[in-house]
């Protein structure tokens, strides 16, 4: 299948005129989404989609600079592709000639081939996928008498194939599948309502563990019943693995070489400096097949590779795509990411892993003694700034008293700066969870955060 897509990409590249550079990204996929409610299918979506994104370069980066134009379309029909190419060509004329705008060139790094495709996504009958969602909803409602509502129980899966070709000799194709179960539970007691979300993720439906999704949703909702605001204080905060995955995902944007070279990261100019405690080793490794973001090739068709960004607290490197690398006087780290066919490549992380410690969450809570355990955060986009480093998010969780989890807490914020948080990590858990998004997560304890409440 992917050979056919690659041939299509190459056939478009062949239309480049003398002196033009061209990169063609083509993709197609299928998706299924089932939502269950009150024992019935609330909605069932099935669709095929496809698209093309074309970058066209005029001029020579080494002689006066080159100009790039981009166009995309949600179709692979020949007339649509032709129109898209014409748009990209026209757009290029208006860009500022830039000595750093070049296409990726094969760099000899072998791609790590991984099996990220599960035939189960395509072969599992729809009735079985529907049954997974309905059973998840039923089981969640039945799991605890305090669960008063299940506002959504979803099964979804996707199959995506991508091929990329360029006038600089790039040819790559990759494919992957994903399957996902998620459930939102609402627990109630008197007038009090609290919510919990749980999920399970895999390459195919056979890897999904409905009980994992259900248990997580029910536990999180029920234990929050009776939550109260608490007085403001400075304390140690223990973050749940899911929150840590989110936090690392935010950190990733400050580790993007593109942000750094444009002076939009608090890490800029700090290579070789100690930016965190000695326990912090942060690696972006899309060649680890366990990672949700695992990929053989990056968004420019170069092989993905293992990049050690922070080693024992010392900032070692940033991730680069081809253009940001050239701007910074570096080479691409195989870290081009793009938002599907409608996006152009940028530098980003796909599979961050903070080297795990050995303690369980219980052991960390015991070691911390007194503080706040945070099971979920809100306002990550409005409250975290990777340029200034300012960090302030809404939080809910449980107080830690005498080394154990105590009463539930809501309507508080936790705040600090990202710089200070990295220097204040006191515990890194061994309870690694592979989670959707660009990072895995484990329990993490950070000292001296501002808790704002009453």
């Amino acid at each position, binding site marked *: 299948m992917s050979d056919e897509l690659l041939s299509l990409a190459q056939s478009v590249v062949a239309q480049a005129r003398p002196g033009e550079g061209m990169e063609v990204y083509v993709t197609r996929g299928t998706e299924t989404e089932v939502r269950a*409610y009150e024992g*019935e*299918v*609330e*909605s*069932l979506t*099935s*669709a095929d*989609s496809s698209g093309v994104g074309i970058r066209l370069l005029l001029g020579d980066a080494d002689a006066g600079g080159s100009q*790039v*134009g*981009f*166009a*995309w*379309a*949600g*179709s692979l029909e020949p007339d*649509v592709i032709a129109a898209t190419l014409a748009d*990209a060509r*026209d*757009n*290029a004329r*208006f*860009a500022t000639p*830039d000595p750093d705008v070049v296409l990726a060139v094969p760099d000899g790094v072998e791609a790590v081939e991984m099996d990220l495709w599960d035939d189960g996504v395509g072969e599992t009958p*729809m009735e079985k996928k529907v049954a997974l969602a309905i059973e998840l909803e039923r089981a969640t409602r039945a799991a605890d008498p305090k669960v008063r*509502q299940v*506002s959504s129980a979803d099964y979804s899966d996707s199959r995506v194939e991508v091929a990329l070709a360029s006038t600089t000799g790039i040819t790559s194709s990759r494919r992957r599948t994903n399957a996902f179960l998620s459930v939102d539970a*609402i627990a109630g007691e008197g007038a009090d*309502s*609290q*919510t919990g979300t749980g999920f399970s993720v895999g390459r195919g439906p056979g890897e999904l563990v409905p009980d994992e999704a259900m248990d997580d949703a029910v536990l999180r909702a029920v234990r929050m019943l009776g939550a109260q605001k608490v007085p*403001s204080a400075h304390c140690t905060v223990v973050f749940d693995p899911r929150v840590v995955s989110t936090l690392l995902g935010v950190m990733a944007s400050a580790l993007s070489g593109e942000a750094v070279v*444009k*002076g*939009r990261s608090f890490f800029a100019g700090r290579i070789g400096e100690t930016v965190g405690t000695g326990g912090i080793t942060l690696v972006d490794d899309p060649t680890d097949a366990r990672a949700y973001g695992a990929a053989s090739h990056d968004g420019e068709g170069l092989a993905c590779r293992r990049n050690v960004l922070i080693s024992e607290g010392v900032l070692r490197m940033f991730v680069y795509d081809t253009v940001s690398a050239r701007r910074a006087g570096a080479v691409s780290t195989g870290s081009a990411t793009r938002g599907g066919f409608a996006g*152009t490549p940028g530098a980003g992380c796909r599979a961050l892993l903070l080297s795990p410690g050995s303690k369980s969450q219980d052991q960390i809570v015991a070691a911390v003694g007194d503080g706040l355990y945070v099971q979920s955060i*809100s*306002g990550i*986009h*409005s*409250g975290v700034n990777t*340029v*200034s480093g*300012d960090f*302030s*998010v*809404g939080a*809910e969780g449980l107080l830690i008293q005498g080394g154990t989890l105590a009463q539930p807490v809501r*309507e*508080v*914020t*936790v*705040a600090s*700066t990202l710089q200070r948080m990295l220097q204040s990590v006191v515990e890194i858990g061994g309870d690694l969870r592979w989670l959707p998004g660009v990072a895995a997560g484990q329990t993490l304890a950070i000292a001296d955060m*501002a*808790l*704002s*409440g*009453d």
Partner: protein
Amino acid sequence: MPGRARGLGWIGRHDDYDTAVTDTALIDPDVLERVLSTALVGGGDMAEVFAEDAATASALLDDRRVEELSSGRSRGAGIRVVDGETTGFAHTADLSEAGLLAAARAAAAVAREGGDGVRTVGLDPMTSHGRGGRTSPDSVDKARKLELLTRADEAARATGDAITQVQVGCGDSRRRILIANSEGLLAQDEQIRTRFTVSCVANGDTGMQTGFESLARTEGYEIFERHRVEDIAELAATRALTKLSARPAPSGEVPIVLAGGSGGILFHEACGHGLEADHIVKDASVYTGQVGELVASPLVTLVDDGTVLGEWGNFAVDDEGCLPARNVLIENGILTDYMWDWLRARKEGRKSSGNGRRQSYAHLPMVRMTNTYLLAGTEDPAEIVAQTPSGVYVKKLGGGQVNTATGDFVFGTTEAYLIEGGRITEPLRDANLIGNGPEVLRRIDAVATDFDMTPGTCGKDGQSVPVGCGQATLRITGVTLGGTA
């Protein structure tokens, strides 16, 4: 016939626009009728075809260079079959009859009742009137768009030497939609939107700070006849520069004065989402069962209004073919109604309120806000500050998030100051505010006259749609501010 759109009323309200919807339908009415019949062949209560042809263009200036001009085209149809409580949905980029029929059969797979044979669907095309803008994006020379970017870049950099980075974006979209359903509805709209954004970084002794400002309207490039891009750039740059001397925001509960037009996102999060009927019918909102109850301060009259011409959340028909309306949600503190789409309205035996929206043809419609705003009050904004002995003055808000089931919500500041002795004093670093919707709404004790709207992008269930938010200067007697000081 719920949600029935009639377009004639629009003529008079659009007479200042001269662009009419093109006469060419996205899909031939005969084909639509056959597709709808096929969608219902296995049974079902309602079938709908939503076709869309969207062209977008954007230009980005970053680090003093025009980095990228981008054009995109998305064209396709989503077909929905509703059978009892179940919805089947399929979408396709293939608008040929064969492609549409295939999608119709896929969507129909959920209908389990067994159809009563072929059902004939007759469509009643309404006369449609585009609102469009006077200056359609594709008629604007790309060089002119670049000139806007360059002017903004220069203005931002001229605001202060400490401005080290400027990113300017200009984007436009022209979205033609067609909605036909088995109840006979056939509606069309053309929506033209234009957006201009400036992000600045300032660098000083205390590190870097950021400033952002945007202009976004459901209009064409004529917006730049009334708005100077230099003003947008200077606002963004000043915001970043001011924060270079900012001190950490306080931690704990403080009185808050929100400036007029600071984002209005307070109401979007504190109650807007909680008043969307999809949350209500599932008893997943703190506002369930509260109609007729006092849910806010008597100073609060909140409206969701898709008809406000040119605002970012404005349209002529919603994505289910229903006319938008000015819906009063809270009147003098009393909850009067929720917002409805076709599906949730049907469940309650009422009409859609014109709030059925979707990101694209590849998404199911759901209940969404349009332009949500608090009606202006009577007080002088300066007086409200003067009568606040100590607190925080929020000049500009960023984004927010809400849990509708608990009512807890956050919203972030991007420009805020201390209020000391009734005067606005030192600038503060960014922080989130956290509160509980119904509690915060009851704590509003002053609303001024200086009403203004701001555009935003609202995300829900993975779908983004443009919305407007509006409010005048107001005071909340206590909200938790998540600073560090």
